[in-house]
C-alpha cells in the first residue's frame, strides 16, 4: 500500500517534470515543424544563468530563476534567427534543422563548459524541507513542481489553442505564405514561438537545477525524455504531450517498482515501440 502511494507520487513527479521538459519542444514542433535538439541545452543554460545570478552574485533564487528564463529565451531567439530562419521552406528543412539545432547543442554545451567549467553545481531549493503525502516523502521543492506543471501547461494550452496570437504560431508552421496573407508577421511569430519554448526550457532547467546537478551535459537526458514524450503522445497537440508525459512518468515509476530500475528503460522502449506499431500516430494522435 505504502509503496503504491510512494510510486504514484514519484510517477506524478516524473510526469510533471517530463511535461515541463516536453512542452517547449512540443510548442516548437507543433508550430514551426522544427525538432529542436538544442532544447535540452537551453534548459542547461537556464540552470547556469539561474546559478550565476542566485549563487554567483548572491542575489537569491527567484531573481535567479527569472534570469534563467530570460537568458534561455534570448538564446532561443538567437538560435531561431541564425540557425533556423534561413532554412524555412527549404527542401530538406526537417533534416537540416536537425543538424543546425545539433550544432546549437554543441555550441551551447561546449560554451557552457568554457564559461562555467566542468564541475558540478547545484541551486538551492525554492523551499527547504520535506513534505509527506499519504506517507510518501518528497521535498517541498518537488511538491511545488507537481503543482506548477499543470498550471504552466494550462496557460500554454490556452495561449496556443484559444488566442489568435497563439494560433498564429501554429499557422506559420503549417503554411507560411497563407499565414502572411492573412496578416501574420511571420518572422515575428517564429521568434515568439521559439522564444517561448526556450523560456519554458529555461524555467525547467532552473527548477531542475535544484534537484539535479548543473553540468554542461545536464540537458541530454531531459531532451531524450522530452523527445519520447512528444512523439509518443502524438505530434498533434499540447494536450497529447501533457497526457503522454504523465502516462510515461507513472509507467516508469511503476515499472521501477515491478521490474526494477535496470530493466525499466528496456521495458519502456519496448512498450513504446509496441504502442507506435498499433497506433502509428502516437498514443493520443489523430489519424
Amino acid at each position: 500500500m505504502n509503496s503504491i502511494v510512494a510510486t504514484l507520487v514519484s510517477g506524478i513527479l516524473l510526469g510533471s517534470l517530463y511535461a515541463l521538459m516536453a512542452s517547449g519542444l512540443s510548442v516548437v514542433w507543433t508550430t514551426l515543424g522544427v525538432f529542436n535538439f538544442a532544447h535540452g541545452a537551453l534548459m542547461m543554460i537556464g540552470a547556469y544563468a539561474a546559478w550565476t545570478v542566485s549563487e554567483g552574485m548572491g542575489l537569491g533564487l527567484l531573481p535567479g530563476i527569472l534570469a534563467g528564463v530570460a537568458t534561455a529565451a534570448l538564446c532561443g531567439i538567437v538560435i531561431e534567427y541564425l540557425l533556423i530562419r534561413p532554412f524555412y521552406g527549404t527542401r530538406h528543412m526537417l533534416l537540416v534543422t536537425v543538424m543546425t539545432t545539433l550544432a546549437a547543442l554543441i555550441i551551447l554545451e561546449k560554451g557552457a563548459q568554457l564559461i562555467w567549467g566542468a564541475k558540478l553545481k547545484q541551486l538551492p531549493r525554492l523551499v527547504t524541507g520535506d513534505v509527506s503525502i499519504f506517507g510518501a516523502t518528497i521535498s517541498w521543492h518537488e511538491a511545488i513542481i507537481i503543482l506548477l506543471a499543470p498550471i504552466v501547461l494550462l496557460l500554454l494550452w490556452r495561449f496556443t489553442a484559444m488566442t489568435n496570437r497563439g494560433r498564429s504560431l501554429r499557422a506559420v508552421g503549417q503554411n507560411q505564405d497563407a499565414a502572411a496573407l492573412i496578416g501574420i508577421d511571420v518572422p515575428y511569430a517564429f521568434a515568439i514561438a521559439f522564444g517561448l519554448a526556450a523560456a519554458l526550457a529555461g524555467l525547467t532547467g532552473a527548477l531542475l537545477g535544484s534537484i539535479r546537478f548543473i553540468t554542461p551535459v545536464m540537458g541530454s537526458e531531459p531532451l531524450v525524455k522530452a523527445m519520447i514524450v512528444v512523439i509518443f503522445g502524438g505530434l498533434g497537440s499540447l494536450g497529447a504531450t501533457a497526457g503522454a508525459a504523465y502516462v510515461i512518468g507513472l509507467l516508469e515509476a511503476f515499472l521501477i517498482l515491478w521490474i526494477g530500475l535496470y530493466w525499466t528503460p528496456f521495458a519502456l522502449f519496448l512498450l513504446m515501440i509496441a504502442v507506435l506499431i498499433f497506433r502509428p500516430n502516437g498514443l493520443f494522435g489523430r489519424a
Partner: protein
Amino acid sequence: DVVKIGVLAPVTGKQAADGEDMVRGAKLAVEDLNKAGGVNGDTFEVVVGDIGDASADAVATAAERLLGDKAVGAIVTGYASTTNFEIEMMAEQEMVYLIAGNSAQTAGIISPNPENFGTVWSLTPSYDGYNTEIVPAIDKLVADGQLKLPNKKVAMIASDNPYSKGIAEGMTKAFEAAGWQITQNDLLPFGEINDWRAFLAKVHQDPPALLINTDYVSANAATFMTQFMENPTNSLVFIQYAPSVPEFLTLTKEKSSGVVYNLLGGVLPREASPRADELLKKYEAAYGNEPGSYGIMLYEEVMIYADALKTVGDPAKRAEIGAAIGKTDKVTAVGRVMFDPKTHLSVQDNDHVPIQFYQILDGKRIMFYPPQYKTGDFKQPSWMK
C-alpha cells in the same frame, strides 16, 4: 631536448571534471621538473589527447596522435577507455604508459603475457581489496564498540559498469562467506540516476544493517544520499569511491555526515602523509581548488617516469625505461609504490598502497582504517539508533 609527456584524458564530455584534474596534475609535475632543470638536461612539455566521450575510435585516434609524435616519451592517464584496450596499442609501439584506471581490466589484458607489456604499468593496485576488506573493517568497528548494528543484513545496489558491478559481486561473496544475509542486490543501468526512491522503498521493507551503493558517479551518489536522508533507515551507508570526490561534499553538505567509503590507490589524507600534504598544497596554490585523486595521481605518474628516465638516460630507450619503472620503489602520495611483475599493478597492502576507509563527519573526511594512517575515529551516524 624537449620530451613530451602525453596525457590521455577526457577533457571534454561527461567526465571532463576528471580530465581537467588529470591534465593539471601532469602539468604541475612538468613545471616542477622543468624548474629543477629537467632530467639529464631534457626538459618536458605536456601534450593532451582528448578522448571526448571515450568511444573506441576517439580513444584510438587520440592515442595514435600521441603515439605518432616522435617527441612523446611517455603517456600518462587516469583512465581512457572503459575497456583499457589502448594498452595494446601502447605495448605494440613500446610506449611508456602509466595508467590509474580499472585495474581488473588492466590485469586481464596484461597477466596472460606480462613480458609483452614491458612499458605499461598501473598505479592502481589490484581491486581484490575492494571486495574483501570491507568485512574485516566493519567487524573491527563492531568489535571496538564504535558501531552497533541491528542485524546482519546487507542491501546492495550497483551500476551496470565493470567497476561497480565487479566490486558489488566481490563484496556479495565476501559478505555471504562471513555469514551475512543479502536482502537486496540490485543492478542499475549505467548513467544518470535521478530517482533512487524506488530502491530505497524496497530497502525500507526490510531495513538492513548495511546499505551499500557501488555507483561511483558522484552526482548519482549525492542524489542517493539526499534521498536516503529524506527518510533514513537504521543502516550504515557505504558508497563506493564517490564521496572521495570533493564535489560530493559541496553537493550533499550536512546530508552526507556519517557516510562511509573506501579507496584503493587513492591519495592518502594530508594529516597522514607529508607527501600528499605537500602535493595538495602545491595544487591548490596553482589552481585554487582541491583536486580529485587524478590530479595527484598523474603528478606521481609523471614523477615515476622522470625517475626511470634519470636512471636510463635516453628518452628514446623506452623499453629500458619501462623496465626501470617496473623496479620502482617510491613513497608517493598514494603510499609506497612497487609494481607486481605478474600483473604490472602496484602492490597493495597496508605497507604499500593501502586500502583506506573513511567516514564523512560534519563535512570532514576522517580516515579510520588502516590504523597506521588513521586520522580519527569512526562515529555511529546520527540517523542510526
